Each structure stands twice: as structure tokens, then as C-alpha cells.
């Protein structure tokens, strides 16, 4: 019975929002806006719940004898200190910005640096892992774009700059469009499955 109620609510709200988006009737539009505002509040609450979940997972890990629990303790300490400083002084206070500028930004920049190494490593191994035409095209495109994005020591290789512009304007855009169209169809299908109750990610199975 409870599952039926959940499903009915999900389907009803979904239909109202969908029709409210396409049909510009005042009642539907107003209802849509109200429902979306409620949803926005719920999503913001879910963000807080995410923080709590993170806290609980790492608290359990740090209080039990599990491997690498030092990392969990460090995370909990960082979370607590940042929350305390930003909560007490405000998010735009110099102390809060100091944590952001000298801890968070360098950490994320380091991850970006690791990412660049990982991507180059993957590019080096790609031809051996998947020796096919697609991999050759992939690597060739990556090399051309990389070479022509940077200044290349001021060397002007004839045709390469035009090739880069052409790749960026024609095949890359066309491929991106095609993939996005397919993805859009998939998104509509997924949404309709939820609207008709065939998919119940809210636990109504």
C-alpha cells in the first residue's frame, strides 16, 4: 500500500511539472513553480544529509580498528575545523578564505596534476590495449589538438593550425552533437519510465 502511494505521488508530481513546462496555463505554471521550489529545498537538504553521511562513515572508520583510519581522522578534523571557522567568522572572512586558498585549491590542483599524468599514461597505453582504427584516430586527434593549442615555440607548421580549427569546428562538434542527441533520447526514456511507474528509484519495487 505504501509503495502504491509513493508511486502515485511520483507519477502525479511528474506529470504536473511536465505539463506545466509545456502548457502555459497559470494553474499548471504556478503549481510547477511551487513543486520545483519544494524540490530545490529538498535537494539542498540532501546536500546536508550528504555531509552527515560522510561524517558518519568516517566516524565509524576512525573509531573501529580499520586500515587507514588515520585518513578518516584527518578528514573529520578538517571538516570540523572548516565548519567551525566558516561558521563562526563567515565564508568570506580572510580566515575562511585562507583555508580555501592554501588547502583546498592546492589539493584540487594536485589532483588535476595527477589527472594529467594519468591521461597521458592512458594515451600511451591505448594503442596497445585497443589496437584498432578508433584508437589511432583518438591519439592522432589528441596530439594535433595538443600541439596546436599551445604556442609550439612560435613554429608555424603549415596546415596544422587550420587542421586544428577544422577538427574543433566540424568533426568534434558533429560527434558531440550526435552523442548529445542520443543521450537526450536516453534521458527522455528514463524520465518516461519513471513517469509511468516502470522504474521506481525511490524504492517502490
Amino acid at each position, binding site marked *: 500500500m505504501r509503495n502504491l502511494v509513493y508511486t502515485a505521488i511520483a507519477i502525479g508530481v511528474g506529470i504536473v511539472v511536465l505539463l506545466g513546462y509545456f502548457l502555459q496555463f497559470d494553474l499548471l505554471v504556478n503549481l510547477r*513553480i511551487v513543486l*520545483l*521550489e519544494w*524540490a*530545490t*529545498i529538498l*535537494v*539542498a537538504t540532501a*546536500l546536508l544529509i550528504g555531509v552527515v553521511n560522510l561524517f558518519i562513515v568516517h566516524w565509524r572508520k576512525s573509531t573501529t580498528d580499520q586500515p587507514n583510519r588515520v585518513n578518516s581522522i584527518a578528514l573529520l578534523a578538517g571538516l570540523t575545523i572548516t565548519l567551525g571557522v566558516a561558521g563562526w567568522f*563567515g*565564508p*568570506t572572512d580572510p580566515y*575562511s*578564505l585562507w583555508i*580555501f*586558498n592554501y588547502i*583546498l*585549491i592546492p589539493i*584540487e*590542483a594536485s*589532483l*588535476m596534476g595527477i*589527472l*594529467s*599524468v*594519468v591521461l*597521458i*599514461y592512458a*594515451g*600511451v*597505453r*591505448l*594503442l*596497445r590495449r585497443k*589496437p584498432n582504427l578508433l584508437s589511432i584516430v583518438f*591519439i592522432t586527434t*589528441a*596530439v594535433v589538438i*595538443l*600541439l596546436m*593549442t*599551445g*604556442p*609550439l*615555440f*612560435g613554429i608555424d607548421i603549415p596546415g596544422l593550425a587550420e587542421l586544428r580549427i577544422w577538427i*574543433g*569546428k566540424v568533426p*568534434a*562538434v558533429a*560527434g*558531440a*552533437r550526435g552523442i548529445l542527441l542520443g543521450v537526450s533520447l536516453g534521458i527522455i526514456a528514463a524520465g518516461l519510465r519513471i513517469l509511468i511507474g516502470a522504474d521506481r528509484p525511490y524504492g517502490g519495487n
Partner: protein
Amino acid sequence: MEKIYCPSCGKPNPIDNKFCDFCLTQFHPQEGDSADSEAPSVPGIGDNQNGLGGHESDSNVPDWLSELQQSNEMEDEKPLDSDPELGQPANAISDWMTGVSGDGEATVGEVSPAAPFLPDQGIDESQDIPHWLNDALIEEEAQDSVEDERPGEVPLGGEGRDVSQGDSSPPKISEETPGDRENAGPLAGLRGVLSAEAGAARVRKPRTYSAKLKVSTSQRAHIDLLNSLLEDEGQPQPLPQRRSISQQHVLRLGIALVLLLAILWPIVIASQEMPFPDYDEGSAEVNRLISQLPENARVLVGFDFEPGLAAELDTAAAPVFDHLLSEGALLTLISTSPSGPLLAERFIRSIKPDQELISGLEYVNLGYIPGGAVGLLSFIENPQGTIPFTIDGLSAWETEGRNGLPATTGISQITDYSMVILLVDDPDTARTWIEQLGPTITNPQVLTSFVLITSAQLEPVVRPYYESSPQPVNGLVVGLRGGAAYARIIGSDEFPGKFWDAFGMGTFVAALLILVGGLGYYVIPELSRTARGQEKVKR
């Protein structure tokens, strides 16, 4: 009509037949055969006057057999139940056994090695053996030949006997007319018993096979292999130790070191050799749009990128905002990502380090809009209702009886802004902004322009929006290249040239690593594999 009974199948045939009509056995004429011939008898038992067609003359019939037949005739006249031996088959057997044991020193189940096995040899001619006993003898001998033949052993009584030669002669079947009583076997005494067919009645000693398994060399090898597999199955195998430093580690470290050196070297030597790009259409268009802004124009700026890409986007956006602030624009900062407001605050304070911008005066930070696309749409439709306060808790908008902040004065809807600038690194976020804002911006009556400052990875996604008509995106600055082009246009020295050389060296080395490393990683193992294959062929 007189009939003759086939010695093989026992079926009646006309007496004139030379061959049996049923089984084609050749009949042999015998002396003393009477017209009323009897059914074929069990070999060695019974009346063989007619039925033993296999005997051409009486001279071939052993004397004992003929005597037995005679005695059978006499026995047949006796009532069945008066036969003490028939009435007491167990005793009779035991008596027989006693008799046999006395003769050949054999006990029940055993056959004396010296005792002849063939029915025609196993019976003392001098004994007056009843017909049923003869039947039993034959059955016993048949059973003994099965029981005594143990695996791998030569049947008892057969030592010195050539087992390959079995008893090839068919047993003689006694002749009985239909309706006569069966004289032997479990159906003894019953009338109308069908005589056995030739093939079924043949009792032949089974061939003796050696019980030793013949195993060839290859089979022995397979057996040993299977044994070893089965033995290994039960034993726990040690897990393969993961090498602490593998080829993957070496390759990763090598790539990281080379890249690091390539990027650090220009910074260390403060190189500024590499030229800035000549002209970029998107950057030029942004420059034109900013130049046309009125004095104290209200500009909405979205900071929707991750802290990891702050270096690229801050560097690309710096000359744009330098130009913007020099035109006297007032900024409203907003973000749909949680870390966006702090990135915005950090960026604004870093643009002019010697001239600190005052929050609430020259810019307003409205903070984070939750809800993604829905939240953004809500802000576009109703900015004041969606975010009424700034990140510092101040009232952001002017109301009746209260002046708003300078950056938000006169703003009631999104189209009241002169320009919307979005700093973005994610294609989905960029599309969300474009799709939510696009219908409003592309309205011919709306004068608000929409400019994107993006990471280089977004170019294929956002360029169609810039090049389409109507144009939801009016200007585009893409990555460091776009920022460098913009700096060159405005003649700004704010753009950090040392990073440009490092950027150039880094991209070049990355391309080289992928090309050379990839080819080497593929070609070298292939060559070595080919060489190994050729070696094997030579061997």
C-alpha cells in the same frame, strides 16, 4: 505323416526333409530312427535315436549316451512324484555331490582340476545317472564355469587347458515330442514346453579376458598429469605477490618526471619567448561587447567551475575582468556549485591586489543557488525571490523603503543586466546555463549579451551555440589561448607570460609523450614477440 524333429531348433519337419525348414540344419539319417521320433534331447541325455541329427551313425554316439537314453526312457515311465530323487532335489544334489566328490575330490562349487569339464567327460559311464541328474550336471557345469572363473585367473580345472578353445560344439538337445514332459531344468515335468532355439540353448564358455589393464605410454602420461592436477587442487596455492614496483609504476613516474621538468624549466629560467596568439574571433567579440557597455553597467557573473581548474580559468578571465572593471562595471556574483561563491570571492580579490574591491559597493556576492538547472531557472525567472540575501547576510535587492546595493540597483529580472558572463569548466553546466538563459537572451527586444569564459575542453560543446543563428552565446573566450589573445588585444601586461611558456612546453611534451611513448609501447613488444616467434620456428 511321419515327422522328424530338428536337433537344433526342435521343430517338427517332414521326415523326407534333408534340411530343417526353420533353421536349415542338415539332417543326418540314423539307424534305428523310428517314425515316431522324439523331440531332440538335451545333449548327452535322453533319447537320441532320432533327434541327434548331427550324428551320422550310431557308431558316433557314445555308449554311455545310448545307455542314458535308455535309462531315460525307463525313468519317463515312472510317475514324477514317485521319483525319490525328484522329490528330494536337495538330497539328490547332495548325494550327487557326494558321489562326484568321491570320484574327483571336488566339493560343491569346485571342480577338480583333474575332473573333466565337458559333459560328455564328466560323468562316469558306469553310473546309472538319471536324466534329471544329467540335466543338473550340465547346468552345474555351466554355473561352475562362471563361478570358478575369477578375474585374472584361469578357470578352475582349466590349468593346462587351453582356454582359448571353448566348447565350440553345440550342446545336444534331447528330442521330445510336443506335449511330452520336459525332463530337465526348472521346467522339468511340465508339458508343452517350447524347446530352446538353437542360438539360445547354446552354452558356451565365455571368453576369458585378462583383468590387467593395458596402459599405453601416452595414457600413463595423461594419468600422471591428472593425478598431479588432482593433488594440486587440494593444496592451497600461495597468492602471487604484487610487485611493489612494476612496469606501470615506472612508466607513470617517468611520465610525471618528464612533464614536471618540461613545465618547471620555463618558470625557473623565467622564459618569455613564446609568442601570444595573433587573433581570436571569440575573444575579439567579447572585447567589442565590453567596450560598448555603458558607465556603471550591471553585470551578472556566474562562477561555475571546480577549484582544480581555478588556475586555467582565473588566468583566462583575468584580462577580461581587468577590462571590465576599467569600464566601471558593477558585478553580481553567483554560482550553482557549492564552492563557486568562494572561488568568486577569491578571484575578485585577486584581480586588483593593489585596489581592493569593496563587497556591497563594487560587487555583490549572492552565493550558491541549490537545485542545479531548476534553481537556475528559478533565479532567471525571479532573482529576488530565489536569492533575497547576499553571502554576507545583507539584503541584496532594493525594495520599497530600502535602497538596494549599487550592483543590484534597478535589477528586478535577469534581462535588466547589461551582460551575463559565465566562467565554466563543465559541458553540462555550460549547456544548462545556455538552455535556461538562451530563450531569454535570443529575444530581439532583449539587449543583454551572454559571454562565456570556458576551459579548453568545452570548445566543441559551446562553439555551435556561438556560431548559430540566433546566437544564444554572443562571445567566447576559450582557455589560456583565448585569455592570451584577449590580453594581446587590450595590450594588458596582466597576463602572466611566464605561464604561457610553461603551458606551451607542457602541451608540446605531452603530445610528444603520447605519440612516441604510444608507438614505442606498441611496436617494441610486437617486435620482440615476432623475434621470439621466429626463434621458435628456427628451433
